[in-house]
Protein backbone atom coordinates (compact mmCIF):
# COMPACT_ATOMS: atom_id res chain seq x y z
CA UNK A 1 0.00 0.00 0.00
CA UNK A 2 2.84 2.35 0.74
CA UNK A 3 4.34 3.75 -2.42
CA UNK A 4 8.09 3.51 -2.03
CA UNK A 5 10.40 6.51 -1.91
CA UNK A 6 11.53 7.44 -5.41
CA UNK A 7 8.88 5.33 -7.14
CA UNK A 8 6.83 8.17 -8.59
CA UNK A 9 8.13 10.71 -11.13
CA UNK A 10 8.51 14.19 -9.62
CA UNK A 11 5.48 15.65 -11.44
CA UNK A 12 3.19 13.16 -9.70
CA UNK A 13 4.87 13.66 -6.33
CA UNK A 14 4.10 17.35 -6.60
CA UNK A 15 0.57 16.74 -7.86
CA UNK A 16 -0.39 14.47 -4.94
CA UNK A 17 1.16 16.87 -2.45
CA UNK A 18 -1.05 19.64 -3.82
CA UNK A 19 -4.15 17.42 -3.76
CA UNK A 20 -3.61 16.28 -0.16
CA UNK A 21 -2.62 19.63 1.27
CA UNK A 22 -6.09 21.27 1.57
CA UNK A 23 -7.57 18.23 3.33
CA UNK A 24 -4.71 18.05 5.81
CA UNK A 25 -4.96 21.78 6.47
CA UNK A 26 -8.67 21.32 7.15
CA UNK A 27 -7.79 18.49 9.55
CA UNK A 28 -5.28 20.70 11.36
CA UNK A 29 -7.91 23.42 11.78
CA UNK A 30 -10.35 20.82 13.18
CA UNK A 31 -7.73 19.53 15.64
CA UNK A 32 -6.94 23.07 16.69
CA UNK A 33 -10.64 23.71 17.36
CA UNK A 34 -10.94 20.52 19.43
CA UNK A 35 -7.82 21.15 21.48
CA UNK A 36 -8.65 24.82 22.03
CA UNK A 37 -11.99 23.81 23.48
CA UNK A 38 -10.59 21.14 25.76
CA UNK A 39 -6.80 20.94 26.08
CA UNK A 40 -6.92 17.48 27.62
CA UNK A 41 -7.66 16.02 24.20
CA UNK A 42 -4.20 16.94 22.89
CA UNK A 43 -2.26 14.18 24.68
CA UNK A 44 -5.07 11.79 23.81
CA UNK A 45 -4.78 12.58 20.11
CA UNK A 46 -1.03 12.11 20.38
CA UNK A 47 -1.21 8.71 22.06
CA UNK A 48 -3.86 7.65 19.56
CA UNK A 49 -1.43 8.51 16.78
CA UNK A 50 1.26 6.45 18.49
CA UNK A 51 -1.26 3.62 18.76
CA UNK A 52 -1.92 3.77 15.02
CA UNK A 53 1.79 3.58 14.35
CA UNK A 54 2.27 0.57 16.62
CA UNK A 55 -0.81 -1.10 15.12
CA UNK A 56 0.79 -0.85 11.69
CA UNK A 57 3.91 -2.57 13.00
CA UNK A 58 1.97 -5.67 14.14
CA UNK A 59 2.40 -8.57 11.76
CA UNK A 60 -0.73 -10.26 10.49
CA UNK A 61 -0.62 -13.46 8.43
CA UNK A 62 -2.84 -13.28 5.38
CA UNK A 63 -4.31 -16.18 3.42
CA UNK A 64 -1.91 -15.93 0.49
CA UNK A 65 0.99 -16.67 2.79
CA UNK A 66 2.45 -13.20 2.69
CA UNK A 67 2.76 -11.36 5.95
CA UNK A 68 1.36 -7.92 6.16
CA UNK A 69 0.09 -5.47 8.72
CA UNK A 70 -3.22 -3.77 9.54
CA UNK A 71 -3.46 -0.18 8.38
CA UNK A 72 -5.68 1.06 11.16
CA UNK A 73 -7.56 3.11 8.58
CA UNK A 74 -11.04 1.90 9.47
CA UNK A 75 -10.41 1.90 13.20
CA UNK A 76 -9.01 5.41 13.10
CA UNK A 77 -11.85 6.78 10.99
CA UNK A 78 -14.56 5.18 13.12
CA UNK A 79 -12.95 6.27 16.40
CA UNK A 80 -11.72 9.76 15.57
CA UNK A 81 -13.50 10.84 12.38
CA UNK A 82 -11.84 11.45 9.02
CA UNK A 83 -10.46 14.96 9.68
CA UNK A 84 -8.36 13.99 12.72
CA UNK A 85 -7.38 10.70 11.08
CA UNK A 86 -5.96 12.48 8.04
CA UNK A 87 -3.61 14.54 10.20
CA UNK A 88 -2.60 11.55 12.32
CA UNK A 89 -1.99 9.63 9.09
CA UNK A 90 0.44 12.28 7.83
CA UNK A 91 2.45 12.21 11.06
CA UNK A 92 2.34 8.40 11.17
CA UNK A 93 3.50 8.21 7.54
CA UNK A 94 6.42 10.52 8.26
CA UNK A 95 7.46 8.33 11.19
CA UNK A 96 7.02 5.19 9.11
CA UNK A 97 9.26 6.67 6.44
CA UNK A 98 11.89 7.81 8.95
CA UNK A 99 11.84 4.87 11.35
CA UNK A 100 10.68 1.83 9.40
CA UNK A 101 11.60 2.73 5.81
CA UNK A 102 7.98 2.29 4.69
CA UNK A 103 6.89 4.84 2.12
CA UNK A 104 8.95 7.98 1.80
CA UNK A 105 9.17 11.73 1.93
CA UNK A 106 8.78 12.33 -1.80
CA UNK A 107 5.75 10.01 -2.00
CA UNK A 108 4.25 11.38 1.23
CA UNK A 109 1.59 13.30 -0.68
CA UNK A 110 0.46 10.27 -2.67
CA UNK A 111 0.46 8.00 0.37
CA UNK A 112 -1.45 10.56 2.41
CA UNK A 113 -4.07 10.78 -0.30
CA UNK A 114 -4.66 7.03 -0.51
CA UNK A 115 -4.23 6.05 3.15
CA UNK A 116 -5.00 9.18 5.05
CA UNK A 117 -7.82 10.66 3.00
CA UNK A 118 -9.62 8.24 0.65
CA UNK A 119 -9.49 5.22 2.98
CA UNK A 120 -10.72 6.95 6.17
CA UNK A 121 -13.36 9.02 4.33
CA UNK A 122 -14.82 5.93 2.66
CA UNK A 123 -14.70 4.01 5.96
CA UNK A 124 -16.40 6.89 7.76
CA UNK A 125 -19.18 7.21 5.15
CA UNK A 126 -19.83 3.45 5.16
CA UNK A 127 -19.90 3.36 8.96
CA UNK A 128 -22.37 6.25 9.14
CA UNK A 129 -24.51 4.76 6.36
CA UNK A 130 -24.69 1.38 8.13
CA UNK A 131 -25.51 3.10 11.39
CA UNK A 132 -28.31 5.09 9.79
CA UNK A 133 -29.63 2.00 8.04
CA UNK A 134 -30.02 0.39 11.47
CA UNK A 135 -27.49 -2.40 10.85
CA UNK A 136 -25.59 -3.81 13.82
CA UNK A 137 -22.39 -2.13 14.97
CA UNK A 138 -20.24 -5.14 14.02
CA UNK A 139 -21.52 -5.22 10.43
CA UNK A 140 -20.98 -1.48 10.09
CA UNK A 141 -17.43 -1.67 11.38
CA UNK A 142 -16.56 -4.69 9.26
CA UNK A 143 -17.69 -3.02 6.07
CA UNK A 144 -16.12 0.29 7.06
CA UNK A 145 -12.70 -1.31 7.57
CA UNK A 146 -13.05 -3.67 4.60
CA UNK A 147 -14.19 -1.07 2.07
CA UNK A 148 -11.83 1.54 3.52
CA UNK A 149 -8.91 -0.80 2.85
CA UNK A 150 -10.23 -1.69 -0.57
CA UNK A 151 -10.62 1.92 -1.62
CA UNK A 152 -7.06 2.56 -0.44
CA UNK A 153 -5.78 -0.18 -2.74
CA UNK A 154 -7.84 1.04 -5.68
CA UNK A 155 -6.50 4.57 -5.13
CA UNK A 156 -2.92 3.32 -4.95
CA UNK A 157 -3.39 1.26 -8.12
CA UNK A 158 -4.80 4.33 -9.86
CA UNK A 159 -1.89 6.47 -8.67
CA UNK A 160 0.63 3.93 -9.91
CA UNK A 161 -1.00 3.53 -13.31
CA UNK A 162 -1.33 7.30 -13.72
CA UNK A 163 2.41 7.54 -13.15
CA UNK A 164 3.22 4.60 -15.42
CA UNK A 165 0.50 4.53 -18.13
CA UNK A 166 2.18 1.80 -20.19
CA UNK A 167 0.88 0.98 -22.75
CA UNK A 168 -2.31 2.82 -21.75
CA UNK A 169 -3.76 3.95 -18.44
CA UNK A 170 -6.53 1.32 -18.44
CA UNK A 171 -4.23 -1.59 -19.24
CA UNK A 172 -1.75 -0.56 -16.56
CA UNK A 173 -4.60 -0.17 -14.08
CA UNK A 174 -5.84 -3.68 -14.85
CA UNK A 175 -2.34 -5.10 -14.30
CA UNK A 176 -1.92 -3.35 -10.95
CA UNK A 177 -5.44 -4.30 -9.89
CA UNK A 178 -4.86 -7.99 -10.64
CA UNK A 179 -1.73 -8.00 -8.48
CA UNK A 180 -3.51 -6.17 -5.68
CA UNK A 181 -6.54 -8.44 -5.89
CA UNK A 182 -4.35 -11.46 -5.18
CA UNK A 183 -2.31 -9.98 -2.38
CA UNK A 184 -4.52 -7.36 -0.76
CA UNK A 185 -8.10 -8.59 -1.00
CA UNK A 186 -7.63 -11.32 1.65
CA UNK A 187 -5.85 -8.72 3.74
CA UNK A 188 -8.79 -6.33 3.55
CA UNK A 189 -11.15 -9.07 4.75
CA UNK A 190 -8.71 -9.96 7.53
CA UNK A 191 -8.48 -6.36 8.65
CA UNK A 192 -12.26 -6.04 8.58
CA UNK A 193 -12.66 -9.03 10.88
CA UNK A 194 -9.81 -7.88 13.11
CA UNK A 195 -11.28 -4.41 13.51
CA UNK A 196 -14.62 -5.90 14.58
CA UNK A 197 -12.94 -8.03 17.24
CA UNK A 198 -10.82 -5.11 18.48
CA UNK A 199 -13.87 -2.90 18.70
CA UNK A 200 -15.83 -5.57 20.55
CA UNK A 201 -13.12 -5.93 23.17
CA UNK A 202 -12.87 -2.20 23.70
CA UNK A 203 -16.64 -1.99 24.03
CA UNK A 204 -16.65 -4.82 26.54
CA UNK A 205 -13.73 -3.65 28.67
CA UNK A 206 -13.85 0.15 28.54
CA UNK A 207 -17.20 1.40 27.23
CA UNK A 208 -16.52 4.77 28.88
CA UNK A 209 -13.67 5.41 26.44
CA UNK A 210 -16.00 5.09 23.48
CA UNK A 211 -18.44 7.49 25.05
CA UNK A 212 -15.68 9.98 25.68
CA UNK A 213 -14.53 9.64 22.10
CA UNK A 214 -17.53 11.64 21.05
CA UNK A 215 -15.28 14.65 21.64
CA UNK A 216 -13.44 13.75 18.46
CA UNK A 217 -16.44 13.11 16.30
CA UNK A 218 -18.86 15.76 17.51
CA UNK A 219 -17.08 18.87 18.80
CA UNK A 220 -20.42 20.54 19.58
CA UNK A 221 -21.39 17.94 22.17
CA UNK A 222 -18.78 19.13 24.65
CA UNK A 223 -20.30 22.55 25.06
CA UNK A 224 -22.17 21.56 28.20
CA UNK A 225 -19.19 19.98 29.88
Amino acid at each position, binding site marked *: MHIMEGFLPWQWCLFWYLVSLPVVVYGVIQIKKI*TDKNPESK*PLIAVSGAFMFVLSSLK*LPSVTGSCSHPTGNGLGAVLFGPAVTSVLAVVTLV*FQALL*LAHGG*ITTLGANTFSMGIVGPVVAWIIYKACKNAGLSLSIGIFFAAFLGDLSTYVTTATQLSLAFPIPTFTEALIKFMIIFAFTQLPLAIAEGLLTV*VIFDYIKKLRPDVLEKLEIFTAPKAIGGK
Partner: protein
Amino acid sequence: MIENTLDNYAYTNSIKDANVSFKVLFAILTVIVCLVSTSPVIPLTITFLMLFLIIFLAKIPFKFYLKFLSIPFIFGFMTFIFMTVFFGISEPWFNIGIFNLAVYKDGLNLGFLVLARIMGCFSCLGFLVLTTPINEIFFLLERFRIPKIIIEIAMMMYRYIFVFLDESGKMYNSQQTRLGYSSLKNTYRSVALLASNLFIKTWSKGEQLYITMESRCYNGSIKTFEVQKSIDIENLFLLLSFEFLLLLGVYLTRGFKVI
Protein backbone atom coordinates in the same frame (compact mmCIF):
# COMPACT_ATOMS: atom_id res chain seq x y z
CA MET B 1 14.30 -3.84 17.05
CA ILE B 2 15.35 -1.93 13.99
CA GLU B 3 13.54 1.28 14.96
CA ASN B 4 15.43 1.34 18.19
CA THR B 5 18.83 0.98 16.63
CA LEU B 6 18.00 3.52 13.93
CA ASP B 7 17.24 6.01 16.62
CA ASN B 8 20.35 5.06 18.56
CA TYR B 9 22.56 5.71 15.54
CA ALA B 10 20.88 9.06 14.96
CA TYR B 11 22.14 10.12 18.38
CA THR B 12 25.57 8.48 18.34
CA ASN B 13 26.98 8.85 14.81
CA SER B 14 30.04 10.98 14.27
CA ILE B 15 28.35 13.81 12.35
CA LYS B 16 25.39 14.27 14.69
CA ASP B 17 26.66 17.72 15.66
CA ALA B 18 26.90 18.97 12.10
CA ASN B 19 24.48 21.72 11.15
CA VAL B 20 20.95 20.29 11.03
CA SER B 21 19.67 22.64 8.34
CA PHE B 22 22.65 21.74 6.20
CA LYS B 23 22.01 18.01 6.53
CA VAL B 24 18.29 18.38 5.82
CA LEU B 25 18.88 20.68 2.84
CA PHE B 26 21.55 18.34 1.49
CA ALA B 27 19.28 15.30 1.76
CA ILE B 28 16.22 16.99 0.27
CA LEU B 29 18.02 18.66 -2.65
CA THR B 30 19.73 15.38 -3.51
CA VAL B 31 16.40 13.53 -3.38
CA ILE B 32 14.95 16.05 -5.82
CA VAL B 33 17.89 15.70 -8.22
CA CYS B 34 17.48 11.94 -7.96
CA LEU B 35 13.77 12.18 -8.83
CA VAL B 36 14.30 14.52 -11.76
CA SER B 37 16.85 12.22 -13.36
CA THR B 38 15.68 10.29 -16.41
CA SER B 39 18.64 7.94 -16.52
CA PRO B 40 19.80 5.51 -13.84
CA VAL B 41 23.37 6.86 -13.83
CA ILE B 42 22.95 9.76 -11.40
CA PRO B 43 20.69 7.92 -8.92
CA LEU B 44 23.23 5.09 -8.76
CA THR B 45 26.04 7.61 -8.29
CA ILE B 46 24.07 9.14 -5.42
CA THR B 47 23.50 5.70 -3.90
CA PHE B 48 27.23 4.99 -3.78
CA LEU B 49 28.07 8.50 -2.63
CA MET B 50 25.63 8.20 0.28
CA LEU B 51 26.98 4.74 1.08
CA PHE B 52 30.43 6.26 1.31
CA LEU B 53 29.26 9.21 3.43
CA ILE B 54 27.23 7.03 5.80
CA ILE B 55 29.91 4.44 6.37
CA PHE B 56 33.08 6.52 6.39
CA LEU B 57 31.91 9.93 7.52
CA ALA B 58 29.06 9.08 9.89
CA LYS B 59 30.74 5.77 10.85
CA ILE B 60 27.60 3.66 10.79
CA PRO B 61 28.54 -0.06 10.81
CA PHE B 62 28.62 -1.45 7.29
CA LYS B 63 26.54 -4.53 8.19
CA PHE B 64 23.75 -2.48 9.69
CA TYR B 65 23.56 -0.17 6.71
CA LEU B 66 23.44 -3.11 4.28
CA LYS B 67 20.54 -4.58 6.26
CA PHE B 68 18.85 -1.18 6.13
CA LEU B 69 19.32 -0.97 2.35
CA SER B 70 18.06 -4.51 1.76
CA ILE B 71 14.45 -3.42 2.47
CA PRO B 72 14.16 -1.04 -0.52
CA PHE B 73 16.37 -3.26 -2.64
CA ILE B 74 14.09 -6.29 -2.34
CA PHE B 75 11.06 -4.16 -3.13
CA GLY B 76 12.82 -2.34 -5.97
CA PHE B 77 14.05 -5.59 -7.47
CA MET B 78 10.52 -7.04 -7.47
CA THR B 79 9.31 -3.89 -9.24
CA PHE B 80 12.17 -4.24 -11.72
CA ILE B 81 11.15 -7.82 -12.61
CA PHE B 82 7.48 -6.83 -12.79
CA MET B 83 8.14 -3.92 -15.14
CA THR B 84 10.55 -5.91 -17.31
CA VAL B 85 7.93 -8.56 -17.98
CA PHE B 86 4.72 -6.52 -18.11
CA PHE B 87 5.60 -2.97 -19.11
CA GLY B 88 6.93 -3.27 -22.64
CA ILE B 89 5.30 -1.82 -25.75
CA SER B 90 7.91 -2.68 -28.36
CA GLU B 91 8.93 -6.09 -29.68
CA PRO B 92 9.85 -8.64 -27.00
CA TRP B 93 13.59 -8.96 -26.52
CA PHE B 94 13.52 -12.69 -25.78
CA ASN B 95 11.06 -15.23 -24.42
CA ILE B 96 11.55 -16.72 -20.99
CA GLY B 97 9.80 -19.92 -21.94
CA ILE B 98 7.46 -20.24 -18.98
CA PHE B 99 3.86 -18.97 -19.01
CA ASN B 100 4.48 -17.34 -22.39
CA LEU B 101 6.28 -14.44 -20.70
CA ALA B 102 8.75 -12.28 -22.53
CA VAL B 103 11.36 -9.71 -21.56
CA TYR B 104 10.93 -6.27 -23.12
CA LYS B 105 13.76 -3.86 -23.71
CA ASP B 106 11.86 -0.70 -22.81
CA GLY B 107 10.30 -2.42 -19.79
CA LEU B 108 13.76 -3.38 -18.61
CA ASN B 109 14.98 0.17 -19.04
CA LEU B 110 12.05 1.62 -17.14
CA GLY B 111 12.32 -1.00 -14.39
CA PHE B 112 16.01 -0.33 -13.95
CA LEU B 113 15.42 3.42 -13.81
CA VAL B 114 12.80 2.97 -11.09
CA LEU B 115 15.07 0.60 -9.17
CA ALA B 116 17.93 3.11 -9.38
CA ARG B 117 15.67 5.97 -8.29
CA ILE B 118 14.34 3.99 -5.32
CA MET B 119 17.88 3.18 -4.20
CA GLY B 120 19.08 6.76 -4.72
CA CYS B 121 16.19 8.43 -2.91
CA PHE B 122 16.27 5.86 -0.17
CA SER B 123 19.97 6.43 0.45
CA CYS B 124 19.35 10.16 0.87
CA LEU B 125 16.55 9.45 3.33
CA GLY B 126 18.83 6.96 5.08
CA PHE B 127 21.53 9.59 5.38
CA LEU B 128 19.08 11.97 7.02
CA VAL B 129 17.57 9.38 9.37
CA LEU B 130 20.87 7.87 10.45
CA THR B 131 22.67 11.15 11.11
CA THR B 132 19.99 13.48 12.48
CA PRO B 133 17.99 13.00 15.69
CA ILE B 134 14.27 13.38 14.95
CA ASN B 135 13.78 16.03 17.62
CA GLU B 136 16.16 18.34 15.77
CA ILE B 137 14.16 17.85 12.59
CA PHE B 138 11.09 18.95 14.56
CA PHE B 139 12.79 22.17 15.57
CA LEU B 140 13.61 22.83 11.95
CA LEU B 141 10.00 22.21 10.93
CA GLU B 142 8.94 24.87 13.36
CA ARG B 143 10.99 27.39 11.41
CA PHE B 144 9.14 26.38 8.27
CA ARG B 145 5.86 27.54 9.79
CA ILE B 146 4.44 24.07 10.31
CA PRO B 147 1.67 24.64 12.91
CA LYS B 148 2.93 24.25 16.45
CA ILE B 149 0.12 21.92 17.37
CA ILE B 150 1.24 19.37 14.78
CA ILE B 151 4.81 19.47 16.05
CA GLU B 152 3.68 19.02 19.63
CA ILE B 153 1.47 16.08 18.74
CA ALA B 154 4.29 14.60 16.67
CA MET B 155 6.76 14.96 19.55
CA MET B 156 4.42 13.30 22.02
CA MET B 157 3.70 10.58 19.48
CA TYR B 158 7.37 9.97 18.99
CA ARG B 159 7.92 9.61 22.71
CA TYR B 160 5.04 7.16 23.08
CA ILE B 161 5.77 5.05 20.00
CA PHE B 162 8.74 3.52 21.80
CA VAL B 163 6.79 3.02 25.01
CA PHE B 164 4.04 1.20 23.15
CA LEU B 165 6.38 -0.83 20.98
CA ASP B 166 7.99 -2.05 24.15
CA GLU B 167 4.64 -2.85 25.70
CA SER B 168 3.29 -4.64 22.63
CA GLY B 169 6.52 -6.64 22.50
CA LYS B 170 5.97 -7.78 26.06
CA MET B 171 2.35 -8.68 25.40
CA TYR B 172 3.36 -10.56 22.28
CA ASN B 173 5.93 -12.59 24.19
CA SER B 174 3.53 -13.52 26.93
CA GLN B 175 0.88 -14.49 24.39
CA GLN B 176 3.37 -16.62 22.54
CA THR B 177 4.52 -18.47 25.64
CA ARG B 178 0.86 -19.37 26.17
CA LEU B 179 0.60 -20.78 22.61
CA GLY B 180 -1.37 -17.78 21.43
CA TYR B 181 0.06 -17.99 17.92
CA SER B 182 -0.18 -21.75 17.44
CA SER B 183 -2.82 -21.66 14.70
CA LEU B 184 -4.28 -19.17 12.29
CA LYS B 185 -7.44 -18.76 14.32
CA ASN B 186 -5.49 -18.29 17.53
CA THR B 187 -3.25 -15.77 15.81
CA TYR B 188 -6.17 -13.59 14.80
CA ARG B 189 -7.63 -13.78 18.27
CA SER B 190 -4.29 -12.92 19.86
CA VAL B 191 -3.59 -10.03 17.51
CA ALA B 192 -7.05 -8.61 18.17
CA LEU B 193 -6.61 -9.02 21.91
CA LEU B 194 -3.22 -7.37 21.77
CA ALA B 195 -4.45 -4.45 19.69
CA SER B 196 -7.52 -3.76 21.80
CA ASN B 197 -5.60 -4.12 25.04
CA LEU B 198 -2.96 -1.80 23.65
CA PHE B 199 -5.61 0.74 22.74
CA ILE B 200 -7.03 0.69 26.26
CA LYS B 201 -3.54 1.01 27.69
CA THR B 202 -2.68 3.90 25.39
CA TRP B 203 -5.87 5.60 26.39
CA SER B 204 -5.14 5.47 30.10
CA LYS B 205 -1.55 6.51 29.39
CA GLY B 206 -2.89 9.51 27.53
CA GLU B 207 -5.14 10.49 30.41
CA GLN B 208 -2.28 10.09 32.88
CA LEU B 209 -0.04 12.10 30.60
CA TYR B 210 -2.47 14.98 30.68
CA ILE B 211 -2.69 14.87 34.47
CA THR B 212 1.11 14.81 34.80
CA MET B 213 1.52 17.67 32.40
CA GLU B 214 -1.21 19.74 33.95
CA SER B 215 0.30 19.34 37.40
CA ARG B 216 3.48 20.81 35.91
CA CYS B 217 1.67 23.91 34.68
CA TYR B 218 0.84 22.72 31.16
CA ASN B 219 -1.29 25.36 29.52
CA GLY B 220 -1.62 23.95 26.05
CA SER B 221 1.85 24.32 24.65
CA ILE B 222 5.24 22.78 25.28
CA LYS B 223 8.15 25.17 25.56
CA THR B 224 11.36 23.75 24.23
CA PHE B 225 14.93 24.93 24.19
CA GLU B 226 16.36 25.15 20.73
CA VAL B 227 19.66 26.14 19.28
CA GLN B 228 19.21 27.64 15.85
CA LYS B 229 22.17 27.74 13.60
CA SER B 230 22.02 28.88 10.03
CA ILE B 231 24.26 27.63 7.28
CA ASP B 232 27.28 29.83 6.53
CA ILE B 233 27.72 31.17 3.01
CA GLU B 234 30.76 29.06 2.24
CA ASN B 235 29.04 25.75 2.95
CA LEU B 236 25.88 26.86 1.18
CA PHE B 237 27.94 27.67 -1.91
CA LEU B 238 29.65 24.27 -1.73
CA LEU B 239 26.30 22.53 -1.38
CA LEU B 240 24.71 24.38 -4.26
CA SER B 241 27.65 23.76 -6.58
CA PHE B 242 27.54 20.09 -5.67
CA GLU B 243 23.85 19.88 -6.53
CA PHE B 244 24.50 21.82 -9.72
CA LEU B 245 27.15 19.27 -10.68
CA LEU B 246 24.63 16.48 -10.12
CA LEU B 247 22.06 18.32 -12.25
CA LEU B 248 24.62 18.71 -14.99
CA GLY B 249 25.18 14.96 -14.78
CA VAL B 250 21.42 14.43 -15.09
CA TYR B 251 21.40 16.59 -18.21
CA LEU B 252 24.41 14.88 -19.82
CA THR B 253 23.15 11.33 -19.18
CA ARG B 254 19.51 12.02 -20.05
CA GLY B 255 19.50 9.68 -23.07
CA PHE B 256 21.38 6.82 -21.38
CA LYS B 257 19.82 3.34 -21.62
CA VAL B 258 20.90 0.08 -20.02
CA ILE B 259 20.40 -1.86 -23.24
